[in-house]
């Protein structure tokens, strides 16, 4: 019984001991020094545009192109930013576990409108608590911005007015007040002043990038008619504005030239209305090519200039042409209409100058020129190679009144003797020093006919009273040939040896004592001249050009039809067997090769002289300009 009791109790004791001897973990450590943080003071945030690195001010962001933003959260004590997330109208855009959040917004994904950009961020409290250290204890903040997106096309703008403001033509227009503005494109239209029926065409474009600027002072416009339209470029789209009103202005007074008693010229013109746009006046003398500027001024009030005609280079001065260029400060898009060229002329538009002659024997060109006062004139000698004036003599020195001098100048056929003739007198001039060697009194020389010709024997043929006359410059003997001379603009010629004379229709031969009629050529022959002592070059109206040999009675047809018009200035070059003629073109040989287009030289009048010297030629145009074969000017003497 005792044993049973003991065993039972022992077993109970053992179980009790086992149960009570099992180690229990029941203590814990609690840190009550850590306290919650409910607010973080001094947090600052910035939203910047990535490209511009500019901080967004305010809470509204207006844009129309794809934007990259950087949102930054700065904490006062470096508290960790656990999460930064952007929402656009509540939908998550992007997120990061750092304090810098990159946000990309493409307006094309959203369209025009207003949106709310909310940026939420979590900052660790820094309390030091278990949750804080574990990154699970944070304070939440958020900031919102209004996004204004406008990618709609710009509306059309109207030009309100075009008027002069502060001395400039100034178009003004409606302001474009949407933030998607990029630039105003002020399109300028100019009227074609040379042919106004062509209307207006674009002549300038001005780009203004400030949306608050709603007018433009057009410093490129001076004269004429202009109008503007204003396009707006916004959100990479461009509207087309309607054309504004036409603005037209003219210089009040045209360019005028008045001859003064002392021979000078007073040139006046009007002041441009848009005077502030004027850069300068350029006044040209257009007698010369290229035209020199004889006056220049940047003062808009300088509208008068006195030109001393003594300043003009070259011989003779009968007609002068002036041109005024009004040049704006800023050339407008290369528009020629704004380079205003106004021309004015003065003087007689007549045959003003003396004739020309040349001699390869003396290597010289000879020419006459009348002074501007028309009371005297000059005879010039010019080196045929250098084209420099080598000598000159006044007409008055020759003892001839200038106002009656007809100033025809010619050389003998052998180019050894130089003659000057007026309606009454014939003068022989020394080709070397231009001294007077002999003079004769003629009877009614008619300068409307051909220029007299002199053979190497001293026999001169000339026209007088409708008849051909023969004058011996050695003896002074003057004989009238039989038959009528047909009159104006017809030719008369004599061979170099003096054996034959041609007077348009009749051929005379010298028989040792006098000239007798040898034959009558076809009456339809216009223009004929001797090309040597036995051959005559002739042109038959509306037919062939041919060479007729007086000795063999043979005819050589050069051109069978009227391929060119050999007027009275046509020449034949025996050295190259080439015919030269002028009718706007020069012909060289039977192939009619145009070796010079005279239109390139702005010939304003029929050439009055054609001089021949070996393989070169000179011709003259009415305003005194001489040209050499290569186009070089001959008026620098």
């Amino acid at each position: 019984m005792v044993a049973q009791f003991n065993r039972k109790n022992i077993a109970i004791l053992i179980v009790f001991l086992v149960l009570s001897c099992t180690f229990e973990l029941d203590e814990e450590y609690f840190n009550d020094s850590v306290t919650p943080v409910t607010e973080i003071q001094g947090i600052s945030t910035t939203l910047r545009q990535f490209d511009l690195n500019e901080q967004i001010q305010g809470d509204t962001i207006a844009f129309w192109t794809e934007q990259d933003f950087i949102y930054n959260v700065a904490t006062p004590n470096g508290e960790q930013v656990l999460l930064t997330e952007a929402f656009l109208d509540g939908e998550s855009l992007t997120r990061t576990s750092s304090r810098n959040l990159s946000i990309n917004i493409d307006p094309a994904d959203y369209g025009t409108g207003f949106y709310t950009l909310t940026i939420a961020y979590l900052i660790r409290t820094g309390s030091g608590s278990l949750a804080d250290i574990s990154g699970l204890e944070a304070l939440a903040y958020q900031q919102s911005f209004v996004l204004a997106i406008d990618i709609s096309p710009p509306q059309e703008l109207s030009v309100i007015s075009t008027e002069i403001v502060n001395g400039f033509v100034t178009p003004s227009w409606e302001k474009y007040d949407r933030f998607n503005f990029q630039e105003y494109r002020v399109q300028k239209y100019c009227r074609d002043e040379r042919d106004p029926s062509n209307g207006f065409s674009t002549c300038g474009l001005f780009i203004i990038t400030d949306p608050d600027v709603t007018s433009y002072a057009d410093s490129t416009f001076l004269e004429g008619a202009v109008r503007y339209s204003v396009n707006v470029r916004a959100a990479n789209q461009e509207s087309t504005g309607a054309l504004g009103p036409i603005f037209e202005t003219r210089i009040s007074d045209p360019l005028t030239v008045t001859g003064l008693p002392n021979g000078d010229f007073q040139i006046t013109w009007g002041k441009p209305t848009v005077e502030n746009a004027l850069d300068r006046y350029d006044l040209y003398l257009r007698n010369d090519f290229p035209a020199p500027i004889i006056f220049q001024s940047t003062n808009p009030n300088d509208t008068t200039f006195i030109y001393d005609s003594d300043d003009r280079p070259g011989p003779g001065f009968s007609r002068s042409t002036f041109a005024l260029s009004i040049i704006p400060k800023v050339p407008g898009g290369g528009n020629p209409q704004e380079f205003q060229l106004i021309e004015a002329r003065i003087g007689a538009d007549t045959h003003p100058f003396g004739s020309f002659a040349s001699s390869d024997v003396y290597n010289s060109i000879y020419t006459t020129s009348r002074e501007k006062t028309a009371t005297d004139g000059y005879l010039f000698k010019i080196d045929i190679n250098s084209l420099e004036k080598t000598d000159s003599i006044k007409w008055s020195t020759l003892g001839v009144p200038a106002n009656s001098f007809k100033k025809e100048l010619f050389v003998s056929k052998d180019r050894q003797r130089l003659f000057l003739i007026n309606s009454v007198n014939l003068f022989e001039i020394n080709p070397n020093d231009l001294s007077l060697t002999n003079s004769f009194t003629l009877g009614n020389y008619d300068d409307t006919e051909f220029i007299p010709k002199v053979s190497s024997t001293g026999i001169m043929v000339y026209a007088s009273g409708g008849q051909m006359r023969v004058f011996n410059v050695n003896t002074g003997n003057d004989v009238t040939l039989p038959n009528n001379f047909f009159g104006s603009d017809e030719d008369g010629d004599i061979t170099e040896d003096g054996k034959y004379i041609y007077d348009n229709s009749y051929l005379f031969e010298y028989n040792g004592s006098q000239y007798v009629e040898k034959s009558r050529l076809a009456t339809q022959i216009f223009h004929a001249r001797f090309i040597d002592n036995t051959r005559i070059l002739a042109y038959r109206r509306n037919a062939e050009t041919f060479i007729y040999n007086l000795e063999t009675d043979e005819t050589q047809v050069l051109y069978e039809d009227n391929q060119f018009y050999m007027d009275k200035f046509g020449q034949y070059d025996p050295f190259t067997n080439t015919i030269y003629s002028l009718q706007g073109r020069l012909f060289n040989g039977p192939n009619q090769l145009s070796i010079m287009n005279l239109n390139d030289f702005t010939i304003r009048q029929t050439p009055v002289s054609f001089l021949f010297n070996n393989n070169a030629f000179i011709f003259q145009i009415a305003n005194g300009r001489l040209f050499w074969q290569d186009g070089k000017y001959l008026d620098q003497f």
Partner: protein
Amino acid sequence: MKKSISRFSFLVLLFLTQTVYAQKLFVEFGHGGFGMAEMKSFQQEIQNQLEFDARIIENFPAYYTVKGSLLFVDFEDVTIGFTGGTMSTGGRVSYGDFSGSYRADSELSATYFGLIGEHIFLKRNNLELTVNASPYINTSTLDFSTEFIIQDNRQVQLLTFVSTSLGVESGFTARYYFGPMFVQAFFGGNFNIGGDLELKTDRDAVLIDGAGEIVKTNWSGYRANIGIGINFKRKQNEN
């Protein structure tokens, strides 16, 4: 706790079946210290790795032990029998504040079974003094659990390791009889060679420290017990 009860129940039944041949049966309740140097180091590592100010609340302290012995072979003054017992200790790394709490618990328990031999070197009246030694085999269980609570969020992880080791417990016992019943006191030491802690679900995985060294249990330490028992060969009136 349930595991400890079931293990010890087995031992109790084993003792009871041997009582037919038993000379002495006694049960000791005592206090023992445990080396556990590697476990302490392991727990220190855990503390060091934490970013917050966690504290080691328990560091495998000395704790109560229970042992039972049945001696049934008697050779003059030497008696041989079986012995077995259980012991437990533990460690805790803990932290808590207003936001939550963290703890890493290492609940370590062991059950051992072995032979016991005692030599009575003094026997006078009702008093016996003996010296005894017990080689044993030890099976340890480490329940390593972590709990991380922040507000309503609770994360728990539990890993169970087991180890087997050999050891010897030796000491002196003073025993005083009251008839066949006696009370005794034991003082001695436990020398345990420790064992690898293998993951229970994967015995190829063992617990290592941060340096890659294997963490072992070590139950070595002093032992001080008191107990009661019965000498089946002694009469009720024998003194």
